């Protein structure tokens, strides 16, 4: 992992996206389809990271009642849907994960 290349690349693409229209300013209107598609990007990318971390924590499928990641994730989903509160979600999900791990390992 080359940190410097990664940071430089992330800086260039992020600043590039934010600046390109300002740099060549004029009015511009984007197609509605693109606007709507972009709304879904964070949901899609984050969930695609969450699922493997939960269901295959060691790189292999681990569908079992003992899997503490699954239990912790379920608790986090319920708390988040109910309270919509970041910190509460993190704390309860981690507590559930820890308790489950302690019970089964």
């Amino acid at each position, binding site marked *: 992992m080359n940190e410097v290349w990664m940071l430089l690349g992330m800086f260039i693409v992020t600043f590039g996206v934010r600046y390109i229209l300002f740099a060549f300013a004029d009015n511009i209107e984007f197609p509605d389809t693109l606007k709507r598609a972009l709304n879904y*990007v964070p949901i899609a990318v984050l969930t695609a990271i969450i699922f493997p971390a939960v269901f295959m924590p060691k790189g292999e499928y681990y569908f079992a009642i003992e899997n503490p990641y699954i239990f912790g994730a379920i608790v986090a989903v319920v708390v988040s849907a109910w309270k919509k509160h970041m910190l509460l979600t993190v704390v309860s999900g981690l507590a559930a994960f820890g308790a489950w791990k302690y019970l089964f390992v």
Partner: protein
Amino acid sequence: MKDCAPLILAAIPFGVIYGALGQSTALSFWAVLAMSVFVFAGSAQFIAVGLIASSTSWPIIVLTTFFVNFRHILYSANLLPHVKDYGQKVRAPMAFLLTDESFAVASNYLKLHGDKPNFNWYYFGAALFMYLNWQLCTLVGLYIGQSVPDMANWGLDMAMVVAFIGIVVPCLHNRATLACALVAGGLSLITYDWPHKTGLLFSAVSAILVAMHLEKKSAPIVDQNNASPMDKDQQENKS
């Protein structure tokens, strides 16, 4: 300043958790901080840390960052009529500080006051405040991560998972968003073995296509200020 107080408060746990997560990965202390200083993009930083934790190569991380931050081009398009009169020396830092939150505050200000005469100073005041807050929270997170030894061993990967859940779940407010999450999650398991995390991008793109198909069939959602479902929910969260 009071306009952005709720957003600043909302960003604090994200910044601290980002710092603590970054600390637990292969990234050095300075790299975690440098990402906040130079990239300054909350969700992309979280995702980068998540990808580093699963040892992804840097070109894929950069590509994913581009993908995730592409929505900012909509914000800049929206602000374009209001920055026309400023030179590049003003526009470039404005663009650098353009995030979900600064856009939300800026578009709200423009709605209430129009852009004359001091929109740029208002914008810089709010955005710089957010920027400094983000750096401070990253530092706090880094120190917390350092002071708790072996965080990775007792499940910091899980901390990332629950933090992501806390971001995603409030966005799932209709069939299309729910399907988007389920398809992305399901496919990501099936495509996990694809080289260089290409399965991640494939899953995300497929999920977005499915969501748009479903959205077209049901009633279209009204787009408020171009705000993504994510912003709206985060603002509701904290108010």
